[in-house]
């Protein structure tokens, strides 16, 4: 993948899978091998529990992550004990997770590890900072797109999206779903001032007035929004949802007479649990969505095989995706098939 060198321009990178079995781990392993060749000081962690030895859903073999000498990693005590390499412990986080304390260590030999890591965005940010303070130039987060994960991978500067036949064996479907996620990832970020203000808000539905000040609308849950539509716009049409954005919310907003002027702000794209249809209906009115935290999508990786045995034609699929997304797309099984120009 020719973009590996470009990735070194970023201080942090997340790899997220559109679905299970989209080749996220294969992609990460490839990246680590290349980063080792480039002698980049790398630190790796994961969100919540990841890196199980076998995939919990389909029981297909899930390769562990191979680290190289000098790389740093952060994982739970439980997985640290199962590591297959020699490593030196550099730090232990006092806070406990369900898998014990989080251990940050440096690989003294190459070998395999299972990754688990911070379960909240705050701790993930701290871990990335810790890596940087230890001299890491690129911190990599093995991310997850899941309702179950509280930590958001968008705290990283750059992002790679893994997609593949597991998402849909039908190439048109696959392109549509991947394109839609890319669109969400690419939603514009709010201004720095607004970002600082909204970052301190932990819950609820807020309105931002013309002077850029946030006001709590005191609606306990966005699910109750239908009962409060008359007071929803008392501070203007810019709204901030601190939690999940649902189809229902978008549909209610889209049905308002002033829908075209609505500017909805979400925390980041992982908080948008919205179907492509509801998203389309909403944006068709002229209403917009922005995010507080955006991560730059640098590439898309494709796994042409699905755990059910489907196999896409790699070259065709990559080309079709790349044309549709206007982004480089790589086959994770043959990552170097695209020649470096």
């Amino acid at each position, binding site marked *: 993948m020719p973009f590996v060198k470009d990735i070194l321009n970023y201080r942090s990178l997340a790899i997220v899978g559109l679905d299970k079995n989209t080749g996220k781990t294969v992609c990460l392993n490839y990246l680590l091998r290349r980063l080792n060749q480039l002698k980049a000081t790398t630190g790796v962690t994961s969100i919540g529990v990841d890196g199980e030895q076998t995939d919990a859903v389909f029981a297909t073999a899930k390769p562990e992550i191979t680290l190289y000498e000098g790389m740093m990693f952060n994982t739970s005590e439980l997985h640290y*004990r199962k590591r297959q*390499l020699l490593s*030196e*412990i550099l730090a232990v986080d006092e806070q406990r997770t369900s898998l014990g304390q989080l251990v940050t260590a440096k690989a*003294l030999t190459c070998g395999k590890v299972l990754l688990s890591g911070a379960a909240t965005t705050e701790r993930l940010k701290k871990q990335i900072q810790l890596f940087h303070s230890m001299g890491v130039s690129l911190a990599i987060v093995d991310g997850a797109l899941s309702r179950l994960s509280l930590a958001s991978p968008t705290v990283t500067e750059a992002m790679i999206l893994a997609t593949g036949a597991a998402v849909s064996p039908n190439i048109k479907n696959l392109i549509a779903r991947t394109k839609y996620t890319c669109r969400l990832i690419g939603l514009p970020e709010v201004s720095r001032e607004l970002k600082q203000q909204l970052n301190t808000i932990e819950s609820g539905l807020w309105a931002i007035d013309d002077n850029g000040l946030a006001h709590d609308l005191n609606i306990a849950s966005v699910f109750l929004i239908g009962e409060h539509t008359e007071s929803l716009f008392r501070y203007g049409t810019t709204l901030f949802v601190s939690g999940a954005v649902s189809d229902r919310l978008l549909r209610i907003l889209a049905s308002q007479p002033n829908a075209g002027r609505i500017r909805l702000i979400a925390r980041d794209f992982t908080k948008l649990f919205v179907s492509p249809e509801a998203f389309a209906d909403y944006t068709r009115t002229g209403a917009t969505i922005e995010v507080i935290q955006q991560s730059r999508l640098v590439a898309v990786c494709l796994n042409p095989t699905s755990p059910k045995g489907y196999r896409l034609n790699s070259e065709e699929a990559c080309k079709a995706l790349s044309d549709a997304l206007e982004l480089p797309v790589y086959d994770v099984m043959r990552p170097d098939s695209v020649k470096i120009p």
Partner: protein
Amino acid sequence: MILKEKIKTDAGLQYVVDHLEIMSSVGRRTLLSRPWLTNPSDLETEYDNIAAAVEVTKDETKRHAYNDLRHRLMELHDLSGTFNNLASHTVLDEVELFETKSFTHVVNQARRAAAELGLDDILQLPDLGEPFALLDPDHTGIANFYIYDSYDERLTPIRHELRSQQSLLASLSQNDENYTPTAQRISDLLAAQNELQNAICRDLSDKLFAHHDKLVTAMEQMGYADILLAEAELTINWNLCRPTIGESSEFAMLVNPRLRERNEKAGLRYQPIDVAFSDGVTLITGANMAGKTVLLKSIATAQAMAQFGMYVPTSKAVITIVDDIYCSIGDEQDEMNGLSSFASEIIKISRAIELTTQSRLLVLIDEPARTTNPIEGKAIVQSLISIMESRPSPTMITTHYSQLGSNCNRLRVRGFVESMVNVPINPQNINRFIDYSLIPDQSDEVPQEALRIASILGCNTDLVELASRCVCQNEGLD
């Protein structure tokens, strides 16, 4: 009694604890388990230690060492679980050994900083050079840890081969015929390595056991250092004062930190109070809104701070040592919920009477018997005063009853001062025209300002006028 228990019933004390900038979980734990001190020499030691810490905190030439010590406290982890394992001869694993090494490293650095600050005598941090050396066979001097080759010479060849096999495996594809044998060899080597490592962990745990007591002491003393520095900071920031221990109590310019902050936020003035009391009863009278309840709460918080070994929010303080504070203050959370306000109050009062036969308490009772008929209510207060007068426990009682016929010490809140009024009064600014200071009061009458205050608060005029007429009639009858 420990601090953790006391803050449950004293919101003012909770506020103080919340403002202590404790760095470590060990410090927080040590703070909350602090005992209520009654021995004068224990208290004096605590006050001396704070004095020393305050001096060090203020000394600009020692800033570097001071910051260093605080930084070490931030790095401190609570290893009580690990040390318990050590005590019970459970073998420590690599993560626990790292934590132990890191701990000894932190303590040794904190010890150096403490010596530079001249706090070594107070903090008494033990020298953990030996346990650190056990965990640092290569003399790296840093806290990082793994099972070093130098622990067992058999590790070197295993790891040497492991390194080359790992590199080989990383370069092989899974379909390569050498892949499986290489992976198998690695797994064998890892097993051999783990066996040696486990033996080393056992051996290190045995050797560390000899240092167990020292490690535990170090953790306790680090916790104490954390509290002491936080107390010194608070003492400076809040301008706290060292209490003198005496026979009776005297607070000059007593402040309630929680209320002061609330007032400052609301742009209201805050008036510190001078108050003195001794064994026997001190009766406090004053109009409504004159701050009698707040006064009792402020005294309770200051007394508690002093007896938990802290400086107090006054400009001068003499404290008399008591075994506990016993409060019956109306609006506090009542565990006896379900009882009427009179019932729960009278049970509390009766308990205070019983408890003071065995221990010396600071008894604070806010407007006793105010929720029952005034004839019996007054009788209850009169009897309470007469019983508590003879007890060797300082007792403060606020009341609106007059003619109680007692010779006890009496103080009156000066209250609403007409001459201070220069703008129209309303419920929001009334606080500006109340003088909260206490004056000795010889008379057996209480101020009758309820109707005036009711009228200022914008109370229904019919009610106020009618009530004023009733007062005149009643006085005429008397």
